[in-house]
Structures are given as structure tokens and as C-alpha cells.
């Protein structure tokens, strides 16, 4: 048959709310990116790419704002160890890159630097909460960057609201994370950009679908139980069955057998990280071949490299793609490659990179490290559209939204269909 292989990069794990793909680049501020490009001579950013909505604001801020010299310490809580470490480590690469660019550009002002105190929550909600509450009670911390795990974020968000300190999350896709004035999230919820797949479904004439999803992941549950049925009602296809399994499941033979008997036109595989590849390869082993469709989910691509051919034809929606035509994304992809030894940029890195720029820009726009001022500036900035590594991002109630791509695995890599 085919070779089953699986060494995967971005993978999944219990506790990680969602594995999303996303693209990004320097956040709203053209100024920063441009300045970085000049300063480092590494980052290729075309001026035109950076001209956009927030330019004026940023310029205005820079003209009038003089921050007192010194170091602005921002706290970042992330999963550097434990099951979500793969996401946390990639995310922090984005933060480091953005921070390096920002400080090199001198955009914050003479003698003003920003630093990130990175705290590892070890993928534990309790650790996240302990560290968050300590940071939230330290008046010298103007803003916090939150962790990637939902179970941690739902605990830390109420603390942020209570202590009135802004927090920007990436990932953490569960409900209960963005709950008020002080909570922001730079990762769009999956169902907000899955619509693109809808047109693919229509195009292919898919009339029936079976769903296999991880029933211990909030985002995937929401997608399987709410977003997909809504889409089905909209487009007029039928969902034959929806099987929820814990993501730790290893043998998918039984649900696959059930699905094969239902004989749908398409199967939607909504698992976390590497489990997608496991399901896909087990489906292929069970004889699921084209023209039968396999629909996947964001984040899935990181796991297909090893199963290669088996995943050919799997189609899904994604928010980040290294081949994205957006110039801001390309600039980011190049910057990542230059900084990290030719590494291919990932959605986790992109989101955090953008989020770090948002934090810096908010401080700059507020021209202060006062918590309230920073949060108000952040609310202002997220009112409009921000262009960055993820391309153009808008916000709904401080929660990110992107158009996304429909992509397909061609056997070796993912290609953009739209």
C-alpha cells in the first residue's frame, strides 16, 4: 500500500484548546516593521506592505510620545514544557523575533526597551493561574501575554478582569477566555473561518458527511456540534453521524468501520494535531480512497509530512500558509527563516509574533505603561484591522477574525486552493 510514516512537527495534546494555523506579520504598525528592516537589514519588508490603516496612529504616537527611559517588562505565560510545549515553544519564537525587531528599531524611544519575562506554566492550569495572579498583582507589569491552553486561560481571564490588566492570548480557543474589557485573543475561532470549506463542499457536490471529532477539545466540539450542523443546514448536505472520541484514542478501526458502512461523500476529521494523521492513515488502510473526500482541520498540515501520500487530497481551512500572497506574511516567513536557520514559519509563531507587536504598539499608542491606558490603546487598535504575519486581521469583541484559506495536501505539502 503506502508507507505509513509519522514524525510530526506540530502536534497536539490534551489540554491544548485548539491547534490552529494562522499567518501573521508585524502587527498594525508599519513603522515598526519598516524600522526593523532598516536596523537589521535582514528583514525584507517593503514599505508598501506596511502602509496601512494604523500607520497614521503609529506615526502620531511616535511624534508625540516620549516614554521614560528604561526597560518595560511584559510577562508572558506559556507552556514551555508538558503536552502543549510544542505550541508554546513555537509561539515563543515568534515573541522573541518580534521583541528583537522592536528593540533593534528603537521605535519605543531613546533608552526604552521592552523585555519579556517568560514563565512556563508546564501545561498546567494551576501553574498558569499561580503565575498569572502574581504577575497581575505586580503593578510594574503593564500587560500580560497569556498561555496557549484553554483550561489555563479560563482560570486566568477572571484574574485579569479583576486586577484590571490587559491580557492577550494566542490559541486558547475555548469559550470563557475572552470575557470582558481586559481579555484579548489573537487566534480566530475555528468556526469563524471554516466557511471557506463550504464553497469547496458545494463545488464537489458533497451531499452526505460523517464526522469524527475529539470530544475532549472545546474548539473541536464546538465545530462538530454547532458549526458543522449549521453549515449543513445552510448548504443542504446531511450529516450522517458524528462520533466524538477522546483524543487519546489510538485504534480508530471501529468508528472508521461504522463510517464506511454509512458510505458518506465526505468525512470530516476533527482531531487534535497528530491524531489527524493517525485517523487519515487508518482510513486509507481501511480503503477510503478518492473520489471520497476527506475534510480536515486547521493545524493538521504539521502532521502530514510523515504520512505523505496517504494524506493526499485532504482539504481543510487554515489561517496561515507560508505561501500566502500577503506581503506581510511573506516578510514574516523570511524573517523566521533568517532568524531560525531556515525554519518554516508556523501558525503558532505567527500569532505570537503579531500579539507581541500588538502589545508594543499598545504601549506606544498609550505612550504609557499605565495598565488602563495600555488596555484602552489595545482596545482602540483592535477596533480596526491589523496587518501582520497572519495577513489582515480584524477583531470582534477583542477576539481575532481572519478570512483564512482553503488548502489541500498534495502528497508532499499543502497548497492553497483559494
Amino acid at each position, binding site marked *: 500500500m503506502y508507507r505509513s510514516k509519522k514524525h510530526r512537527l506540530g502536534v497536539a495534546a*490534551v*489540554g491544548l484548546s485548539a491547534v490552529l494555523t494562522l499567518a501573521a506579520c508585524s502587527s498594525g504598525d508599519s513603522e515598526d516593521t519598516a524600522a526593523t528592516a532598516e536596523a537589521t537589514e535582514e528583514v525584507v519588508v517593503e514599505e508598501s506592505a506596511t502602509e496601512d490603516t494604523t500607520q497614521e496612529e503609529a506615526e502620531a504616537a511616535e511624534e508625540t510620545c516620549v516614554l521614560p527611559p528604561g526597560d518595560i517588562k511584559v510577562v508572558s505565560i506559556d507552556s*514551555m*514544557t508538558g503536552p502543549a510545549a510544542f505550541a508554546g515553544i513555537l509561539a515563543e519564537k515568534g515573541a522573541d523575533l518580534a521583541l528583537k525587531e522592536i528593540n533593534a528599531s528603537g521605535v519605543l524611544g531613546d533608552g526604552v526597551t521592552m523585555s519579556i519575562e517568560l514563565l*512556563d506554566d*508546564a501545561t498546567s*492550569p*494551576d*501553574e498558569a*493561574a*499561580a503565575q*498569572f*495572579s*502574581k504577575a497581575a*498583582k*505586580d503593578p510594574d507589569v503593564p500587560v500580560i501575554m497569556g498561555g496557549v491552553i*484553554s*483550561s489555563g486561560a*479560563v*482560570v486566568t481571564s*477572571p*484574574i485579569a478582569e479583576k486586577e484590571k490588566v490587559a491580557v492577550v492570548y494566542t490559541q486558547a480557543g*475555548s*469559550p*470563557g477566555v475572552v*470575557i470582558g474589557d481586559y481579555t484579548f485573543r489573537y487566534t480566530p475561532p475555528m468556526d469563524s473561518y471554516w466557511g471557506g470549506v463550504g464553497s469547496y463542499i458545494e463545488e464537489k457536490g458533497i451531499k452526505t458527511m460523517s464526522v469524527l471529532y475529539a*470530544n*475532549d*477539545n*472545546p474548539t473541536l*466540539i464546538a465545530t462538530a456540534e454547532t458549526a458543522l450542523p449549521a453549515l449543513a443546514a445552510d448548504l443542504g448536505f446531511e450529516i450522517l453521524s458524528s462520533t466524538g472520541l*477522546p483524543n487519546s484514542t489510538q485504534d480508530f478501526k471501529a468508528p472508521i468501520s461504522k463510517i464506511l458502512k454509512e458510505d458518506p461523500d465526505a468525512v470530516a476529521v476533527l482531531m487534535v494535531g497528530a491524531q489527524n494523521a493517525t485517523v487519515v492513515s487508518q482510513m486509507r488502510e481501511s480503503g477510503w480512497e478518492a473520489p471520497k473526500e476527506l475534510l480536515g482541520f486547521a493545524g493538521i498540515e504539521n502532521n502530514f509530512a510523515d504520512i505523505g501520500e496517504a494524506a493526499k487530497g485532504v482539504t481543510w481551512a487554515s489561517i496561515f500558509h507560508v505561501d500566502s500572497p500577503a506581503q506581510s506574511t511573506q516578510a514574516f516567513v523570511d524573517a523566521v527563516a533568517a532568524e531560525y536557520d531556515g525554519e518554516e514559519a508556523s501558525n503558532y509563531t505567527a500569532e505570537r509574533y503579531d500579539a507581541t507587536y500588538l502589545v508594543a504598539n499598545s504601549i506606544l499608542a498609550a505612550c504609557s505603561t499605565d495598565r488602563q491606558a495600555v488596555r484602552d490603546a489595545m482596545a482602540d487598535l483592535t477596533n480596526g484591522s491589523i496587518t501582520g504575519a497572519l495577513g489582515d486581521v480584524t477583531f470582534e469583541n477583542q477576539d481575532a477574525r481572519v478570512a483564512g484559506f482553503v488548502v489541500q495536501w498534495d502528497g508532499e505539502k499543502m497548497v492553497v486552493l483559494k
Partner: protein
Amino acid sequence: MMGWIDQNEFLIGSTLTVFLLAISIQIPLRLGVISFASIGYYAIGGYGTAILMTQYDVSTWTSVVVASMAAAVVATLLGLIISRLNGLYLAMATVSFSLLLSAIAVNGGSVTGGAVGLFGVIGDITIWHTAGIAVVIIFLVSFTERGKLSRRIDATREDSQLASAMGINVTAYRRLSFPISGLIGGLAGALAVNLKTAINPESVNFTLVVLALTIIIIGGQASWIGALAGSLFFVWLPEILVFVGEWEEVVYGTLVVFAAVLVPGGVVGVFNDWRHRRSVARERPKVALLEAAAGESDAELTQSRSGKDG
């Protein structure tokens, strides 16, 4: 000081709720019952409180009391239905009980919030309340660590057959440990959910069982002091030993293995042994007589024997 408490409020609160959970496991353990059911009680207390507060707008304290009582009732029933098991079989039955509850939490739909769990449980419990409750429980538990009751508990644990021959109603003691363990475990969950404002199936899984058990093993089974020492150790170790960092789990594992092999009595056991040796040492004159006394009484007996024989 107040500033420090304020900054570390969450860690202090965690320490206290983990301590209560450890006590809930320790009470049956002191009677020789290896029960992992406390995680189930914790889940009942936590979910119960969260459901009452967020879905029925019940006041904080009423929710806490009702949920804890519910845990105690479930514990009593569990104690009755598994009463013919002991040792590892009982342990396994209680593991399954706890995991069944976590499966219910995952599949509970909107009542339990499924995999997301319940969040936004904002009540009016401060760490001072939690500390107060912990102190009351320490006060009550300390009664079981003194005098007659503690002797009977020790005998029940160390050798239930012996205890029974000594007139101790082993079954009654063990059965009674269930509702008490249930109440305290439920309380731990109820207070934890107020501290964390959220609860999900992941927070009541097997990892928690392991944590609570290792706390008792490191601290010591015999006394609440052991549970407290263990809780402090495990909650604060990552704070203090920052350099441990990514090898935290390895350090934990190694410590637990060392504790299991070398100090089965835990930190408190080591301390008690030391104290005993010291007190014996202080009474040098008497102890010097130890061997002599043994010899003497031997002589005496031999004498009386020959007397009687003669």
C-alpha cells in the same frame, strides 16, 4: 507580609485546597484503606458548587455546603457497596469510581459543560475563609491523632486482624472513614472551584490522584502535618526550584521513588523517629537499664520458675 500574601494568594489557596484533598485521602489511608475515591468527591464538590452557583444562582456558601454534603452522601454509599473489598482491589474500585465520574463530567452536556467544563464561578470566598476551614479541619483531625483513638486507628491500619482481636470494630471504623473523607474531599473541590473560578474534566483526572497520593507519601501518612508538609512541598517546589524547570517531572518522580524506598513514613515519620530516639536518649539512666532490666526480669522469672518446680 500582607503584600506577599496578596501576591501569592493563588498559591496559598492551592496549597490549602490540595491539603484538604490530601487529608481526604489520608483519613481512610490511616485506617488501612487505600482509596482513590477522594478525586471523585473532589469532583462532586467542585462541579456541584459550580453548577449550583452558575446555573441556579445559589449563594456561594450554600452551594459549598450542599455540594460537600452530596459528596459525603455519595461516599457513604460507595463505602457500603464496596465494603467487601480490601487492599488493591478496593483501590482499583475507587479508581474506577473516580474515573467514571470524570467520564460523566465529559459527557454531561450543558450541565457539566463537557470538555470545556464550567467557568465564571465567582463567589465571595477569600483565602482567609479557606484558611479558617483548614484550621477547623486540622483541629478536628488532630483529635484522631492523640490517645485512645489514635492507637485504635494505628492498630486498624497496621494489622486489622489484630485490631479485631483486641476488640476494635474494624469494619465500623473503616466504614465511618468514607463519609468523613467524602465531606472533606467535597469541601476541597468546592473551595478549589471558588479559588480557580473554573473546573473541567481534566482537573479531576488521574493526575490529581497521583498528586494527592504522592503528597501523603512524601509528607507522611500518620498525621495532618504530613499532609500539610507534602502540600507545601508540591505546590511550592516549582516556585522555589525554578532551575529545576523542564526537569520538574523527573525531579518529582525521583523524589517519590526515594520516599517510597527509603522513608515509607514520610517526612513526619522521619521526624517522629528522631524525636523518639531523642526522648529515649534524654532518659539515659532509664534506657541504660533497658538491657539490664531485660536481664533482671529474665533472672526473676527463672527464679520463680525454679521455685515453683521445686
